[in-house]
C-alpha cells in the first residue's frame, strides 16, 4: 500500500494532492510548446495547437502554420486564413479561432468548417489584441480586447449578441492582465492596469480593490478564475498571491513566493473547504492551498520535466507537455480515508480484510469483526465504492470494488444499486479513458456532464460503435440512446453525395422505433447540409415534424406544399402565417397563387367567420328565409372584400358596415373603388349621394363636391348640400347650392344661408302662409325690419284676396 500513496503530496494537515499520468503524449510537435497557441477543452476535451511563429516573422516566411487537433483524432491542416490571436473550445466542442480582424471561425472536431461570425466593426478597425473564450451558463462566450483597449464580448456564441463594454478611464496601454468573469448570469471583465483593478460590466466601469490586499503591490501580472467563477487569484510582480472570492469582497488567503508566475490555474475539489491554486513557472509547478484563517500558505512543489500547459477542470488541473498528459487533483476524501498511511477508517479495514481473505488468512475475520463491532460496515462498503470511482487505475478500482462486494456479503440489507451503478459507470469511464478514445474524464466530471452529453461527444468524435455499445450496456431507452446515435451519426459524413447519404441513412435505420428523421435532418442542417436535410425530411412520415424545419431552413414554399400534402389545415396556417411575416405582400400572394388550396385555406382562415356564415346562410336557405340568406351572403362578400382592402390599402376595414366601408374609401381618396363597391353591392342612389355628400364635406373637398353635385340630378335634392355646407360653416359654398334647391324647399335653403330678404321674396311668390311665418320668425332686429314689413304687407294682401 505504501507505494500506492507515493505520488500523494501532503498539503496542509489533511489534504493530499496527487498527480498521475493520463497518457503519454504521442504528438509530434515540431516546435516547443511555448511557441504554439494551445487550447484544450474542459471535461477531457480535445487539444489544439497552432504555431505562433509565422506571424511573428515576416510574411515571406515559407513556413505555413499548421492547425492541429489532438486526442480524439489527430487532424491537421494548413492554416490559410488570417492571423489567429486566440484559440478556444466552445461547450459543444467546437473550435473557435479568433482572428486578428475580429472574425471568429468555428470548426468542428474534425476540422470541418462550420460557420464564421464577426465581432463587429469596431473590432475590425482596431484589430484584436487579445481574446478569451469563456464558458457561461448559456454556452460559450468570447471576450475580445481590441487595439483601442476596449472590450467587446458575446456571452453566447451560438446566439450572438455583441456587447461593447464601457471604456476604462485613463487606460493608455493594454491592461497588464484581464479575465472574463461570469456572475449572476452576466458576463463581466476584470482587468488590471498596473496596481489598479477595474470591473467592467455592461453599463459601467468601476474600480475595485481586493479586500485585505497587502500593500506595496505595484502591478498585477496574472489573474486566474476558478472553474465555477467563484474564486479568483491575483499575482503581483512581487510574487505576492492574493486569493479570494471573485467578487473581491472576501479574502481567502494570501502568500508570498518568489516566482514570476507565467501561468496559473485553479484546482479545487467540489465541496472541499480548501481551495488551491496551481502555479506553473518555468519547469516547476506549485500548488498553493489556501487555509482558512492561515495567513501563509503551504506550497507543494512538483517538478515538471518540460514546458507544460495547464487546463482547469471541475475538480483538478490537466497538465500536458510535449510528452505527457497528467492530471493533478486533490485526493478525494474517500480515497484519502482508505489509503492514508495507517488509516483505521472502516473502508481501509474492509479493504485490508478482503486482502487477507484472499490470502486465506484468519486476519480477515479479525478486521471484519473490528468493523462490525463499530457498526460501520455499511459505511465501509460505501467508502470502498466511492473510492473506486475516484481511482484511475482499473486494478485499484477492481480491488476496491471487490472489497465492497466482500463487505456486502456481511450486510443484510444493503441496496445493491449504488454498487451496480458504480461498476457500470467505471466500465464506461475506463472505456472512454482508453487512449484510443482519449477522453480522460474523472468520475465527478462524468457525473456533471451526464451520460447524454457524453454520448453526444462520442458521436461528435464519430465513435458510433462505442456509443451504441455504451447505450446498450447501460440499457438506455431507445429514443435517448441508440436511435439518437443512429440518427445523428451518418449525417456528419461529408464526402458522400446527399442522395446517397440520405438513402444510406434510410437503409440503416429503416423504421427503427424512436428514430426521428426530422431530428437527423435538423442535425444535417446544423452541419450546413441543407440539401441533405431536405432529402432526409422526405423520409419523415409526420408532416408536423417536417414543416417547422423546412421553415427554419427558409424553404417556405416547400414547407407550404408539404403542409398542403399533409392535409392538416393547422399546419398550413402555421406556414401561411410564417410566410406572411416573411415575405412582402406581393410575393406572398404570388406564392399563394401557385397553391390554390392554400389560397382557399387562407381565405377561410382570414374569414374564419365566413365559414360559419356560410353554414348560417345554408341554414337560412333550408328555413326558406331567403332574405336572411342573401343578407348573410352579402356579409360574407363584404368580409372578403374588406380583407382585400385591408391587404391592399392598409387601414381598418374589417367589421365596418357597408356604408362605413364606402365612406372610409372615399375619405381615403379611393373614389374609384368606392364606386365599384357601390355598384357591386347595389347601393341605392339616394344612399350613395348622402354618403358621398357627408364624406366629401368631412374632407372639405368642395371642388369634388361641386363636381359631384353636377354629375347628375341629385336624387336627394340640393337642400342637404346647403345644410352640410352650413354645418361646415362654408357659407360661400352653401350659396352655390341654395340657388339649385327645388322651389318647395327654397325658402328653407335661403334661410339657412341667412338670406332672409330673398327668402321672403320667394315665400311671397309662393303665397304660402307657413313659409311666410317661418321667414318672419327668422326676421330679427333692425336689419330685417324692412323684410318683416314686406311680409306683413304680403300677408294682408293675401288675406284681402
Amino acid at each position: 500500500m505504501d507505494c500506492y500513496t507515493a505520488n500523494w503530496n501532503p498539503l496542509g494537515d489533511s489534504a493530499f494532492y496527487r498527480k498521475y499520468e493520463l497518457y503519454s503524449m504521442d504528438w509530434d510537435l515540431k516546435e516547443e510548446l511555448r511557441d504554439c497557441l494551445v487550447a484544450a477543452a474542459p471535461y477531457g476535451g480535445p487539444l489544439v495547437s497552432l504555431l505562433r511563429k509565422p506571424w511573428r516573422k515576416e510574411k515571406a516566411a515559407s513556413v505555413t502554420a499548421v492547425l492541429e487537433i489532438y486526442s480524439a483524432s489527430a487532424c491537421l491542416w494548413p492554416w490559410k486564413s488570417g492571423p489567429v490571436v486566440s484559440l478556444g473550445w466552445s461547450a459543444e466542442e467546437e473550435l473557435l479561432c479568433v482572428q486578428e480582424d475580429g472574425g471568429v471561425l468555428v470548426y468542428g472536431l474534425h476540422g470541418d468548417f462550420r460557420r464564421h461570425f464577426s465581432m463587429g466593426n469596431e473590432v475590425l478597425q482596431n484589430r484584436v489584441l487579445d481574446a478569451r473564450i469563456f464558458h457561461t451558463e448559456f454556452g460559450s462566450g468570447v471576450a475580445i480586447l481590441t487595439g483601442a483597449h476596449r472590450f467587446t464580448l458575446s456571452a453566447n456564441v451560438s446566439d450572438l449578441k455583441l456587447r461593447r463594454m464601457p471604456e476604462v478611464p485613463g487606460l493608455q496601454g493594454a491592461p497588464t492582465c484581464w479575465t472574463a468573469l461570469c456572475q449572476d448570469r452576466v458576463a463581466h471583465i476584470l482587468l488590471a492596469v498596473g496596481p489598479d483593478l477595474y470591473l467592467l460590466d455592461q453599463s459601467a466601469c468601476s474600480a475595485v480593490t481586493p479586500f485585505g490586499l497587502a500593500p506595496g503591490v505595484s502591478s498585477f501580472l496574472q489573474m486566474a478564475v476558478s472553474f465555477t467563477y467563484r474564486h479568483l487569484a491575483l499575482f503581483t510582480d512581487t510574487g505576492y498571491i492574493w486569493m479570494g472570492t471573485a467578487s473581491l469582497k472576501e479574502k481567502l488567503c494570501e502568500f508570498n513566493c518568489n516566482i514570476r508566475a507565467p501561468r496559473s490555474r485553479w484546482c479545487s475539489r467540489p465541496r472541499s473547504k480548501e481551495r488551491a491554486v496551481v502555479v506553473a513557472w518555468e519547469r516547476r509547478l506549485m500548488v498553493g492551498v489556501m487555509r482558512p484563517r492561515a495567513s501563509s500558505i503551504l506550497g507543494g512543489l512538483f517538478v515538471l520535466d518540460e514546458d507544460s500547459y495547464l487546463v482547469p477542470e471541475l475538480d483538478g488541473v490537466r497538465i500536458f507537455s510535449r510528452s505527457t498528459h497528467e492530471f493533478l487533483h486533490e485526493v478525494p476524501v474517500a480515497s484519502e480515508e482508505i489509503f492514508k498511511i495507517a488509516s483505521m477508517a472502516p473502508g481501509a479495514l474492509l479493504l485490508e480484510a478482503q486482502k487477507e481473505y484472499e490470502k486465506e488468512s484468519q486476519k480477515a475475520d479479525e478486521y471484519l469483526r473490528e468493523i462490525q463491532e463499530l457498526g460501520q460496515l455499511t459505511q465501509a462498503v460505501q467508502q470502498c465504492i466511492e473510492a473506486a470511482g475516484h481511482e484511475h487505475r482499473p486494478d485499484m478500482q477492481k480491488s476496491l470494488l471487490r472489497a465492497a462486494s466482500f463487505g456486502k456479503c456481511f450486510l443484510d440489507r444493503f441496496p445493491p444499486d449504488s454498487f451496480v451503478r458504480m461498476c457500470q459507470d467505471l466500465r464506461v469511464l475506463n472505456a472512454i479513458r482508453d487512449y484510443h478514445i482519449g477522453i480522460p474524464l474523472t468520475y465527478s466530471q462524468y457525473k456533471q456532464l451526464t451520460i447524454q452529453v457524453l454520448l453526444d461527444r462520442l458521436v461528435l468524435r464519430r465513435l458510433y460503435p462505442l456509443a451504441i455499445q455504451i447505450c446498450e450496456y447501460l440499457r438506455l431507452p431507445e429514443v435517448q440512446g441508440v436511435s439518437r446515435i443512429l440518427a445523428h451519426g451518418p449525417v456528419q459524413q461529408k464526402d458522400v453525395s446527399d442522395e446517397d447519404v440520405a438513402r444510406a441513412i434510410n437503409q440503416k435505420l429503416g423504421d427503427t422505433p424512436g428514430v426521428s428523421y426530422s431530428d437527423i435532418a435538423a442535425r444535417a442542417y446544423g452541419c450546413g447540409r441543407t440539401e441533405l436535410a431536405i432529402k432526409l425530411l422526405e423520409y419523415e412520415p409526420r408532416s408536423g415534424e417536417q414543416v417547422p424545419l423546412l421553415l427554419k431552413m427558409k424553404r417556405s414554399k416547400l414547407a407550404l406544399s408539404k403542409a398542403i400534402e399533409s392535409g392538416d389545415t393547422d399546419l398550413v396556417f402555421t406556414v401561411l402565417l410564417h410566410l406572411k411575416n416573411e415575405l412582402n405582400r406581393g410575393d406572398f400572394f404570388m406564392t399563394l397563387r401557385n397553391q390554390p388550396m392554400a389560397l382557399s385555406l387562407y381565405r377561410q382562415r382570414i374569414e374564419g367567420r365566413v365559414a360559419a356564415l356560410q353554414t348560417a346562410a345554408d341554414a337560412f336557405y333550408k328555413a326558406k328565409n331567403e332574405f336572411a340568406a342573401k343578407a348573410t351572403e352579402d356579409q360574407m362578400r363584404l368580409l372578403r372584400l374588406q380583407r382585400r382592402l385591408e391587404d391592399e390599402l392598409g387601414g381598418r376595414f374589417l367589421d365596418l358596415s357597408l356604408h362605413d366601408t364606402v365612406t372610409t374609401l372615399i375619405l381615403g381618396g379611393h373614389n374609384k373603388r368606392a364606386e365599384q363597391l357601390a355598384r357591386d353591392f347595389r347601393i341605392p342612389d339616394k344612399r350613395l349621394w348622402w354618403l358621398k355628400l357627408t364624406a366629401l364635406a368631412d374632407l372639405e373637398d368642395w371642388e369634388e363636391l361641386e363636381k359631384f353635385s353636377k354629375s347628375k340630378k341629385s336624387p336627394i335634392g340640393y337642400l342637404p348640400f346647403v345644410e352640410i355646407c352650413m354645418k361646415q360653416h362654408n357659407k360661400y359654398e352653401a350659396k352655390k347650392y341654395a340657388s339649385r334647391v327645388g322651389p318647395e324647399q327654397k325658402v328653407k335653403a335661403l334661410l339657412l344661408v341667412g338670406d332672409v330678404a330673398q327668402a321672403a321674396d320667394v315665400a311671397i311668390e309662393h303665397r304660402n302662409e307657413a313659409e311666410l311665418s317661418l321667414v318672419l320668425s327668422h326676421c330679427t332686429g333692425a336689419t330685417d325690419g324692412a323684410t318683416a314689413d314686406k311680409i306683413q304687407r304680403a300677408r294682408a294682401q293675401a288675406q284681402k284676396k
Partner: protein
Amino acid sequence: MAFPHRLDAPELPDFSMLKRLARDQLIYLLEQLPGKKDLFIEADLMSPLDRIANVSILKQHEVDKLYKVENKPAVSSSEQLCFLVRPRIKNMRYVASLVNADKLAGRTRKYKVIFSPQKFHACEMVLEEEGVYGDVSCDEWAFSLLPLDVDLLSMELPEFFRDYFLEGDQRWINTVAQALHLLSTLYGPFPNCYGIGRCAKMSYELWRTLEEEEDGETKGRRPEIGHIFLLDRDVDFVTALCSQVVYEGLVDDTFRIKCGSVDFGPEVTSSDRSLKVLLNAEDKVFNEIRNEHFSNVFGFLSQKARNLQAQYDRRRGMDIKQMKNFVSQELKGLKQEHRLLSVHIGACESIMKKKTKQDFQELIKTEHALLEGFNIRESTSYIEEHIDRQVSPIESLRLMCLLSITENGLIPKDYRSLKTQYLQSYGPEHLLTFSNLRRAGLLTEQAPGDTLTAMESKVSKLVTDKAAGKITDAFSSLAKRSNFRAISKKLNLIPRVDGEYDLKVPRDMAYVFSGAYVPLSCRVIEQVLERRSWQGLDEVLRLLNCSELAFTDMTKEDKASSESLRLILVVFLGGCTFSEISALRFLGREKGYRFIFLTTAVTNSARLMEAMSEVKA
C-alpha cells in the same frame, strides 16, 4: 304651478317602509357573517343599494372594502368575502373562479353569496358544477321594491323585458308575485284587481296562490289601496316607442335617468364636473315641471327665476330683525331652490339645443303621421332617409318598429328594402336584431296573403259609409295581429282638435305627446276603471289579442273606504315610460284618483330597442 292636486285627493301610503325593511334585512344578512368582510357588489345593484344603505351604514356593519363584480381577479385580502349579486350564471362563474383560485393558492376564506331579489336553482347548480357549492353559503335578499319616488316603485329589473318578452323566460314572474304579496301584507289586500296580458295573468295567479298559502294575516286588514291594475308591456308597445316630450321623459331620453337620479354632464352644469341629481318629488322645482310638456317648461322656469329674484329682493327693505329671520329660515331654502333652478335651466338649454333642430321636429312630425296613419309612403321614405344618413341605429330601429306596429306589419317590399338599407348602414350583425324584433312582435312583415288592407279599401269604395265601417271591423277581425288603427279608432286615441292643441291647459292625456296621441295603455286603464270591469271592451281586447288574458277580480265585501278606492296601483310588467306616468298623474288629477306605479324598470324607446339589439360587445 300647472296642476295642483285636487283637495280631495287621497293620501299616498308611506313607502319608505319598504326601504327600511330592505335595509334591515340586508343588515341582518351582513351580520350573519360576523367580523370584517369585503363586499363585492354587482354593478347593476350599486345604485339601488345606494338608495337603501349608504357606505357608512355598510361600514357600521363591518364591511371593510367594497368591490365591483367585474371580469377581473379580485385583490381582496380579507378573510371573509361577501357577494351581493343578481342571480346570473356569469356571476356564479365569477364567484366560483375566485373560490377555486383561493383553493389553488391554499387559502381558506369564508364566502357568502347574497342573491337579490331571489336565488335561482340554476345558480346553485353552477356553483355545484364548479365544485364550490360546499364552500359558499347562499342567501336571499328579497329586495324587490325600490321606492324611487312617493308614487313610483321600481323593481330595477331592466332585463325583465328581454327575458320575458323575447326569450320567454318566466323566472321573474315569481319575483313579481312575491313583490305583490309583500305589498298586500304591508298595505292590506287589494279589493279590486284588473289585469291584461299573459304575464299579468300568470303573476296574478301565482300571487293569489301565495296569498292562499299564507292567508289569515291579511284578511282582517282594511285595504289601503283600492285597485290594482296589471299590464303587460306588449299590450302597448306604441306608447313606449314614441319620443317623449314631457320634461321628465325628455330628461330620461336625453340624459338617461338611472335609478331615480341623473348625471348631468358638463354641458348642463356649465362647469367641468358632472353633477348627480336626484330627481323626485323632493326636488321642488323638478316636481313642478316634471309632468309639463316641454314647451311650457322654459316659461315656467323663467317665471320661477323671477319669483326667486323677487324673494331675494325682499331683503332690501328689511330691518335687522326681519333680516335675521330671513337668513335663518328662508335663505337656505332659497339658495337650494336657486341651485336646482340653475340645474334645470341648464338641462333645458341642453335639451333645447338637441331637440329644437329641424331634424327633431321632422322626426316628431313623422311619428305623429304614423300614429294617425296618414302619409305612410312619405313616412317610409323618411325612415329610409334616416337610415341612409346613419342618424342613429336605435332611432332608425324605433321608427321602423313604430311603422310596423301601427301598420300591422310592413308590406313585404318595404320590409325587405328597409332591412337591407339598415344592414348596409349599421352592419350585418343586425340581422339577429331583426329576428329578435320579429319574435317580440315589434317589427313584422305582412304575410304575402295578408292583403286584407288592400282588399278592404277596395271593397269599402263600393259600399256606403255605414257599411264600410262594418267591413272594416270584419276585416280587422280577420287580421291576426293587433290592429292599432282599429283600436285607435275604437278608443279614440287620436283626439280630433280644431286648431292648435293648447299644451298649457291640457284637456286630455294626449298632451304628453303634444296632443297627437293618447297613450294606449293609459286609455285602457282609464276605460277599465270607469267601467270597473272589462265589460264593453270586448272588441278592444280582441283587437289586442288579449281576449283570454284580461281579468277582473273583485271582492264582494266592501270594507274599503272611499278614500282607498281612489288609490290605484298600476303594475307595468316590462317597464313603463315617464310619459305614461305623467299621463296617469294627469288622469288622476282630473278624476280625483291617485295612481301608484309599480314597474319592473323605468324604460323608454331607446332602452327597449337596445334590449332587442344584438351588437357585439
